[in-house]
């Protein structure tokens, strides 16, 4: 047990200050109306994702329960009370398909970022903590990754893969981790400079302990902010791959794929591309609002 820890727990002043800090953080978040709006949008999408089968008027049109439905007699109906977003070339209800698409997009975002963080953060931690030749080499590698735009690199990776949802996530995660490695690396360096890490080393704390107790909590805030900002962008990249035909294949109700299919029926069936695209726009906007609010709240710089 280190001294610093006992002091922290017993000193009411510190707790008091922590509570004040937290209050200020919450206050700052509330000060930013856009971040509240972002939070509402995200909650809305999560709600839709969970309850899609109950909200969607025609769940089977989106392939729910592996019972894909087609109604060629209803194809290309323009938006109406019955079909809010109209129908597609197979007479399927676009509204229902867009609702179900929420599940895919959120899943892609979460899986990609979870994978990217669990590769990138350890790499950054190790590189930053060890420093020297190993650290240098690791960061050079990440630099190389960062020199190619993520979408292009993801495309390059997906050449060798079958186009499907899992591989899209794999491809994006494979090119996304360096951003987290770089961010963590920078934070570790700046935290290392600060004296308290020196101090905890001085009283005999092990390296692992230093990493987990001192450095990790400090990199948490910037990583959270970056994840929130990236979530939207990862969804966007996945949708782009879908749009190019490299992601989920029809009839999966993936938004990017739907926009791409709708393109073939432009401009007469304008609704086909428009509504799935709107959904992408809204979810990305929500995450951007939220991420920006979080950035103000934690007062951190990312990228």
């Amino acid at each position, binding site marked *: 047990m280190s001294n610093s820890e006992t002091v922290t727990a017993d000193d009411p002043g510190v707790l008091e200050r922590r509570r004040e800090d937290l209050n200020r953080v919450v206050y700052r978040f509330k000060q930013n109306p856009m971040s509240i709006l972002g939070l509402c949008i995200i909650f809305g999408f999560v709600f839709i994702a969970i309850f899609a089968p109950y909200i969607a008027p025609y769940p089977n049109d989106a392939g729910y329960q592996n019972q894909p439905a087609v109604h060629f007699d209803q194809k290309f109906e323009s938006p109406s009370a019955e079909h809010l977003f109209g129908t597609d070339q197979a007479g399927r209800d676009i509204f229902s398909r867009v609702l179900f698409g929420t599940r895919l997009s959120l899943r892609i975002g979460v899986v990609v970022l979870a994978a990217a963080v669990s590769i990138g953060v350890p790499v950054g931690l190790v590189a930053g903590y060890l420093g020297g030749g190993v650290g240098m080499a690791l960061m050079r590698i990440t630099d190389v990754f960062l020199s190619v735009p993520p979408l292009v690199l993801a495309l390059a990776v997906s050449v060798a893969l079958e186009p499907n949802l899992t591989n899209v996530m794999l491809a994006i995660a494979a090119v996304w981790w360096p951003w987290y490695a770089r961010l963590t690396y920078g934070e570790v360096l700046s935290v290392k400079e600060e004296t308290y890490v020196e101090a905890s080393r001085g009283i005999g704390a092990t390296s692992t302990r230093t990493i987990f107790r001192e450095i990790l909590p400090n990199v948490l805030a910037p990583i959270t902010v970056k994840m929130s900002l990236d979530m939207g962008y990862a969804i966007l990249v996945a949708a782009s791959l879908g749009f190019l035909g490299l992601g989920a294949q029809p009839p999966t109700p993936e938004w990017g794929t739907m926009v791409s299919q709708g393109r073939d029926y*432009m401009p007469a069936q304008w609704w086909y591309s428009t509504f799935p695209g709107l959904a992408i726009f809204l979810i990305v906007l929500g995450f951007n609002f939220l991420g920006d609010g979080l950035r103000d709240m934690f007062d951190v710089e990312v990228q």
Partner: protein
Amino acid sequence: MGHRNYLIKRGLSTIPMFVGLSVLIFTLARVIPGRPARLALGPRASDEAVQNLREQMGLDKPLWEQYFDYVGGVIQGDLGQSLISNRNVATDLMEYFPATFELTTLAMIIAVFVGVPLGVVAGQHKDRWPDNASRLFSFFNVSLPPFWAGILLQLVIAFQLGWLPATGRVGDVSPMPIETTGLLLVDSLLAFNVPAFVSATQHLILPAITLSLAPIADIARMTRSSFIEEYDKDYVEGLRTHGIPERLIAYKYVLRRSFASSLTIIGLDYGFLLGSAFVVEIVFSWPGMASYGVEAILQKDINAMVGVTLVVGASFLLVNFAVDVLYGVFDPRVWHDGDSQ
């Protein structure tokens, strides 16, 4: 003096990045599950055919040997055979690259000329309505999927209003200007071919605007924050105390310094822009390198895809090198790194 040393140092540091880039892309293309020859020929091809292609592509050699063969080729301008066009990938790229370059460059020019003033106005009116409006506008821009934004522009401006063509690079113009640079705008100007120039411009506008949306937002935000930061500096107060007009302070002194910060973002954005070009070129049927790259991926044409990725990565590195050089022009302090006390 500092100039030359700085440039040399910065230039040299790009070389290992190039090497790393080539290794990375090469590794991705060869090591990832699924072998290139099998991918290229498809599952129904006979094993013998696959084996022949492997030998033909040199895939039976050890990996490091393959790499050096490839790099040797690259240095001589040989990027391997494309499986779809049956030409050298380098030849294909020479044909398609200028169209992409023209598009992305114009998009970047639009982004700078819209984004920087937007950022300055927002910075000058910090926390008042022009700032909030610009902030909201930026959020919308970065959140728009480029392919969808392109489709909306096509729907409204091309199909509904009929103002501009929806797809392609140039209309039915004859004679077409002789290709010298491959940049249609430049070529048609060189040949004083007004109809071709007008048509090319009309075709460029929508895709260029689509591509510029996200960088506009980034540049505006970056300019705003660095402008505000710079406006707070002591020397600004000093200039004001000496009675220097506010306009001169803002545009001569403050903007120059904050533009240097924006340049960094411009370099990064160029990379994202090259990425977005892949979807935007598809939307607008733009005959560029990105369209070629997408085709290559769909057809599992490994050499073509590696070539495209290499060119994209290299352009990105070069743009960032150029940005760093320009940075020194706007903020001469970097040149004196080390020779000041």
